[in-house]
């Protein structure tokens, strides 16, 4: 065979050239780095991803903090929060109910004379808002008030009247289920106005159940 190659020198040259060029071509050809996969050890467990229908996560309403009691108009509320609300009335106020899907809960904007007076925000997510506020503001609540619907579940209103905010919260963990925003005022004025508007009382309602 060697003699044949010797005789056919062209073939010898061709073989040599091919042997040299093949690896060069391999190096020159563009390499898609994405195809350079890690070698996965054979013992690795590759998790199986199971696609399941997703339920919309619970979340707070976005941009609600841009609505300012005593300043924002009803028109501005619609511009900030959108027009997906239902309108109603409550004790002389125009009320704008913004739903919080997938829950049945709604944030409520109370409007009087075209100006926002109160914002009642539901908090469907786990949190420590009341505790966080106390820590960040360095202040303590003006008082602890009662709500007949929630105090028998361990939630009370903690009011910061001069900051225009109150938290319906569990006192041990600061877990908040509702935040009420209003125009900053003195605590006594809050008790005479806002507290009465929302049936928030200084005395606890009787919580005795009986069967007979």
């Amino acid at each position, binding site marked *: 065979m060697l003699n044949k190659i010797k005789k056919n020198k062209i073939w010898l040259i061709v073989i040599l050239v091919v042997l040299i060029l093949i690896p060069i071509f391999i190096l020159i050809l563009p390499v898609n780095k994405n195809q350079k996969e890690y070698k996965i050890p054979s013992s690795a467990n590759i998790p199986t991803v199971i696609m399941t229908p997703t339920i919309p996560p619970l979340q707070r309403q976005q941009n609600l903090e841009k609505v300012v009691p005593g300043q924002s108009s009803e028109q501005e509320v619609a511009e900030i929060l959108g027009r997906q609300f239902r309108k109603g009335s409550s004790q002389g106020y125009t009320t704008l109910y913004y739903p919080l899907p997938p829950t049945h809960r709604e944030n409520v904007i109370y409007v009087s004379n075209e100006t926002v007076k109160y914002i009642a925000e539901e908090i469907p997510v786990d949190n420590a808002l009341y505790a966080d506020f106390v820590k960040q503001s360095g202040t303590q609540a003006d008082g602890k008030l009662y709500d007949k619907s*929630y105090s028998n579940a361990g939630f009370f209103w903690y009011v910061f009247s001069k900051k225009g905010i109150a938290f319906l919260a569990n006192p041990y963990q600061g877990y908040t289920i509702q935040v009420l925003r209003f125009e900053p005022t003195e605590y006594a004025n809050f008790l005479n106005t806002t507290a009465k508007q929302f049936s928030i009382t200084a005395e606890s309602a009787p919580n005795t*159940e009986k069967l007979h």
Partner: protein
Amino acid sequence: MKEKFFQKKFIILYFIGAGLIWMGLVSVVYIESNVTYHNKILAQEGIICPSPTSKKNAMQLLNCYLNTPAPTIPVPTPTITPVVTKAPIPTPTVDPCSSQLADYAVVKQALLTKNKIDLQGDPDLAWANQTLTTMCKLSSSPTFNTLLTAQGNIVIRFHTGSCVIGNADMNTGIDLTGSCDPQLNRAVLVHELAHMIAFRNPAIFNSYLSTVWPSQIPTYNCQTHFGSGPTAAECFADGVAENVVYSYLRITSGGLPAGNPTFPEYPTTYASYYNLMNTSVFGSVSFTSF
């Protein structure tokens, strides 16, 4: 010259040379394609080699890989098999959950050790045993136990009186006044314990607000709480109680709310209540008999 070029020894050298070039270039490609994998392994050991930006850097990368110390393979700690000694045979004792106890002090101690219930006051023995029976059954739900007692013991104070009145306070515990038939006693006890669960686990109550409320159930404390009802807190507590007693009792007072005395439709007609309480409060443990 040409003839010299094609002499036998030179032909063999040509093939050997080509073969060496071939092997060298293939090795570089092979190593480079695996360097990224090895970089990942090295990175896990805290050793980082730069990624190759071109084929020219492949040799530099090879040097980095070759010059870095080999990753240390952790030596598994040998497990020490404990020496098992035969435990002494315990003296048989009466399981407080298996039968009625004849001594109030024993019942009180059993409630404290098994259920973290601190029973106070002076109840009659029958009522105390009823309470123990209920707590023994509820203890079959680890979820319920954890939710109830995560923050310590629960004080239950018994007061003499007529048919049962209950009250729950997040600071002082539960007050029960009077005694009715065992089924009503059980319903009121679980209702008050549900308040304690809400006090101690605000996230569960918030979940109730998001997934169930303002839906109501036709029970007394839910619909007619002091005449002004319903309230979320009372409907939650009645819902927890009905999850335990629905097969034989619908919680009413003076026949109100009107309807059947039992509540077999509770799991289906009021599925939002049943499902939340069954999963979040009782950890899928069902109570169909006592």
